[in-house]
């Protein structure tokens, strides 16, 4: 049995699980709620973000609430919750088989355990990609249909500094493509982690909860803003790099503070974050293979 055939079977199994569609439904519901809320009263949110600047500057709030801005706001919220949705599927990979008693049957097939793990990981990655494509369709393209396009405003805090960045509308789409590609890598780390945890369990609830707990705890530590933790702990947590997709929206500026079209403020930081995430994937999948190869399959 070749890898491609195995992958097809895995993907078929994923499509047959009702929980797969819970993830898509959850994303759709959250996106629709955001779009409805901003259509009804987006200007209040804009006023909140503008703070004192709204008294000093006149600008078109209606034009500022466009499809690009909406997608950024939705991703900002969703990409914290999406790891949980990825864990729903990926954490079921091995433990689900163990729970149903099919794991022994699976490993008795003429495929290596390494192949099984790689195929399970590939299937979870493909699910993650589909989830992000769905997010792009609903949060980006649907928002563009509802709100139109325009220059994009990015509100950002950098240390003690707060700032508003404006990206011209002809400079936005490539940033979204790059951000979604980055998010795919970031969420694949979660998929790999869930897969690893699922090897140790006989039902999928344990690994799902464990993954969610790890993500929540690490995210809290990543955002705690205590200098000693920022310096000594934060760099070693993968959750610190999950929001690296935002780096594609931190546009570079010249000495006068005017933005430069097509530029990134800190590409090396994004690249390094990406490398760290890829290293996490390789490491976690490697550990998964090593553990699964030595595992006594009793169920």
């Amino acid at each position: 049995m070749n890898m491609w055939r195995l992958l097809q079977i895995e993907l078929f199994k994923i499509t047959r699980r009702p929980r797969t569609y819970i993830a898509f439904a959850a994303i759709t519901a959250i996106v629709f709620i955001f779009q409805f809320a901003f259509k009804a009263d987006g200007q209040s949110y804009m006023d909140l973000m503008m703070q004192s600047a709204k008294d000093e500057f006149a600008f078109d709030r209606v034009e500022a609430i466009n499809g690009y801005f909406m997608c950024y706001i939705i991703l900002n919220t969703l990409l914290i919750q999406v790891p949980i949705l990825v864990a729903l599927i990926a954490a079921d990979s091995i433990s689900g088989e163990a729970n149903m008693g099919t794991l022994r049957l699976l490993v008795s097939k003429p495929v290596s355990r390494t192949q099984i793990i790689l195929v399970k990981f590939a299937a979870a990655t493909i699910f993650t990609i589909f989830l992000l494509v769905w997010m792009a369709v609903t949060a980006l393209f649907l928002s563009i249909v509802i709100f139109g396009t325009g220059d994009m405003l990015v509100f950002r805090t950098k240390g003690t500094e707060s700032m508003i960045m404006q990206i011209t509308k002809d400079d936005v789409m490539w940033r979204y493509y790059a951000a979604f590609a980055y998010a795919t890598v970031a969420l694949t780390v979660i998929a790999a982690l869930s897969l690893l945890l699922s090897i140790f369990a006989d039902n999928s609830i344990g690994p799902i909860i464990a993954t969610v707990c790890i993500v929540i705890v690490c995210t809290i530590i990543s955002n705690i803003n205590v200098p000693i933790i920022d310096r000594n702990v934060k760099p070693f947590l993968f959750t610190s790099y999950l929001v690296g997709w935002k780096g594609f929206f931190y546009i570079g500026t010249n000495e006068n503070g005017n933005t430069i079209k097509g530029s990134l403020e800190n590409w090396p930081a994004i690249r390094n974050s990406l490398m760290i995430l890829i290293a996490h994937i390789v490491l976690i999948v490697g550990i998964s293979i090593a553990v699964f190869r030595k595992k006594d399959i009793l169920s």
Partner: protein
Amino acid sequence: MKMLLTMICCAASVVSVAQQDAAALIKKIQAKLDLVNNYEASGKMKTNVTFLKVPEADVKIYYKKPNLLKIKNEKGISFVPKGAVSINLSNIIGGNQYTVIDAGMDKVGTVSTRVIKLLPTDDNADVVLSTLYIDEAKLVVLKAKTTTRENGSYQLDMTYGKYAVYCLPDKLVFTFNTKDYKLPKGVTFDFDDGAASKPAEKNKTGKAEISFSSYTVNKGVDDSVFK
């Protein structure tokens, strides 16, 4: 005693003549400004504010007497300082609701200018004081400082070209006070790229620089533009 009185009288008459000269100079500038009933101008606006990272914008500026002014970005969003209405000198000089005070001579760059202060006669007016630096030879205002009750101080620096006859600048730099901008905590979840943030500046001023490429004067501007 007679000598002292004579000196005081002479000094008073010199001051009075100077005030009349200053008022006459303002009248001349006003007359030039009155030639413009409306205009539509094209230009490029560069905004330099610590917390605003915005692109250089192609803007259109619309003006209509007595005090309607609108700056529009042709292609997208533009952040226009609210005090920018004073980039039109008619809003400072027009109305005659002020006392003219001659404050002597000063240099703007290499040009020798007459400094004239305008004190509003209305105690409740938002503008507390305007100071104009006027090139008497060309009859144009090179610099204007305005202090307001509620909105801080503004400064206009202008250079003139072929529209000097209307007192319309080719380039102006509008300097204004800005407040601290702070986002509410915990709403952005930002990516920490490890780069250090800039230390906060104590005296916060912003600048908007507009370079005009063309003016269309007195060809009519629709009221709907200003809505």
